[in-house]
C-alpha cells in the first residue's frame, strides 16, 4: 500500500485517502470539433500504459481534494516524485532529471514529523 506525498498538504499520507485517476497530462483537445473520430478516440481511450516510469493523476480525495501528478514506477511501485497540477515531471522514462526540492522530501526514506 502506497505512502503518497501530497504536494498540497506537504506531507505523506496513506493511499486510502487518494484515488488514482489514470494517466497524467492527457489534455482535452482545444478544438474538439476539429478532431477526427480517431483523434477523439485517442484522447478518450488510448493510453501509454508503460511498464516502468509512469506519470499519473491522483486526487487527495479524503484530504485536500486536490488533483496532482505522481511519477511512479509501475513494476517496483516506487514513487519517484509528486508534483502539482500545471507542473511538468522532472523524472521521465527517457531523462532521469534531478527531482525538485519538494519532491526530494517525498523521496526520502523514513520521513517522520
Amino acid at each position, binding site marked *: 500500500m502506497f505512502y503518497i506525498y501530497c504536494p498540497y498538504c506537504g506531507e505523506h499520507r496513506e*493511499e486510502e485517502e487518494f484515488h488514482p485517476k489514470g494517466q497524467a497530462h492527457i489534455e482535452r483537445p482545444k478544438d474538439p470539433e476539429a478532431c477526427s473520430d480517431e483523434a477523439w*478516440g*485517442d484522447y478518450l481511450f488510448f493510453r501509454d500504459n508503460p511498464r516502468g516510469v509512469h506519470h499519473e493523476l491522483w486526487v487527495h480525495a479524503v484530504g485536500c481534494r486536490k488533483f496532482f501528478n505522481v511519477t511512479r514506477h509501475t*513494476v517496483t511501485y516506487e514513487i519517484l516524485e509528486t508534483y502539482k497540477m500545471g507542473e511538468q515531471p522532472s523524472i521521465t522514462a527517457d531523462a532521469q532529471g534531478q527531482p525538485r526540492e519538494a519532491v526530494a522530501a517525498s523521496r526520502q526514506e523514513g520521513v517522520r514529523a
Partner: protein
Amino acid sequence: MQRYSGFGLVKHALSHHENWQRQWRNPTPKKQYDVIIVGGGGHGLATAYYLAKEFGVTNVAVIEKGWLGGGNTARNTTIVRSNYLWDEAAALYEHAMKLWEGLSQDLNYNVMFSQRGVLNLGHTLQDMRDIQRRVNANRLNGIDGEVLDAKGVQELVPIMDCSKNARYPVLGASWQPRAGVARHDAVAWGYARGADALGVDILQQTEVTGFKIRDGQIYGVHTNRGDIEAKTVGCVAAGNSGVLAKMAGFKLPLESHPLQALVSEPIKPILDTVVMSNHVHGYVSQSDKGDLVIGAGIDGYNGYGQRGSYPTVEHTLQAIVEMFPIFSRVRMNRQWGGIVDTCPDACPILSKTPVKGLFFNCGWGTGGFKATPGSGHVFAASLAKGEMHPIAEPFSMFRFHSGALIDEHGAAGVAH
C-alpha cells in the same frame, strides 16, 4: 503423444512411473514459422493448438518470455461462465463454454471443468433489474440461466446469510448451472501438450525484444535467442500487450492493473457453487482441495508488479464475511496478484492492427480465463485466414474510435 487414461496410470504404477514421457518438448527455435504466437499463456497456447488442429497450420512457434502458463493462467480464480449481457460478448463466451464442455476429452488432459454453477447475487433493486435484463438476454441467446429470489438462493447455499438483517440483504441472484470452475494450470499444460504433439514449437525463456516490420507489414520478431521470421504474428500477452504494441509503434486502449486473489486454508467441503456479488464486492468458490478461493475487483492504479494494495484484500474479506458470517474464524492462507489488461468497456480486443499481419488478442481484463478455449479458437481462425472470425469481429481495437463499445461493466464489476 502418450495417451492418458486410468488404465495407463495403473500400467505406469507397475513400472514405478519410470516411463512417463515429457508432456512437451524443449525445442530450438527455427529461423522461420508460418505463424508466431507471442505469449505462452492459456490463450496463446490454445491459439496454437487450434491453429494446428482445426486449421492445419502446424509450423507455429509460441514464444514465451518466462514459463508457459506462468502469467494470469496461473493466477486467476478459475471461474468459467458465459452469462454476459451484450450479444457480442455472450457469443464469444458461450463459444468458449461449448468448447469447455468437451475440453478434457479433446485434449486428453483432465482440466477438471466442474459445472457446479455460478450465482451472481443482487442486493439492490437496480441489481435485480440488471440481473433480469442479463438473464433474459442470455435465454434468447441460447445461454442457460435463471433468476432466483432470496429463498431460491438460500436453498442453493444454505450457509449464506440471506436474512433481511444484512447490511445489503440478498434480494436474489442470477444462476447459470452450466458455469463453474476449472483447474487453471491444467488448461495451459493440456493445450501445450496438445499443441506440441501437433508440431508446434513452444519456446520458453524466449523474450520478444522487437518486431521486424517493413512497409507496414510484419515479417518477424527479434528475440533474446535471435530473430525469428513469420508473416503472421499474433500477440497474446495480456498485461504486457501495451509494451508489445509500443514496440510495434502504436498505442492500445489498455491499462494494466493489479488484480488480487486469495485463498483460505483448506477446509472440509462446505460450498458447492460459485457465489459472486458485485454489490458487496467479492466472490468465492471452494476448490477440490478445500481452499476457499476468493477474489474481488482490480486496484485502480496501473501496475505490473503482480501485487496490489492491502485494503483491496480487506474489503474483499469484509464482503465474504458479510455474506458468510460463519467464515469469520476460517483463516486466510495466501494472497497473490496478477496483471490484467483492461479495456474501457470491459471487453477484450481481438483485432487487426495498424501493422499488416500483426494481430492482437488482449484486454481481457478480469475475464480472460473463462474465455480461453473460445478466444484461442476464434483467434486461430483469424490468424489462419488473415481475416477476423465473425465472433471476433466486434472486438476490434478500432471500436474505440467509432464509439461502438460493448459495455460489459455490469457483468465485470467484480473480477472473475
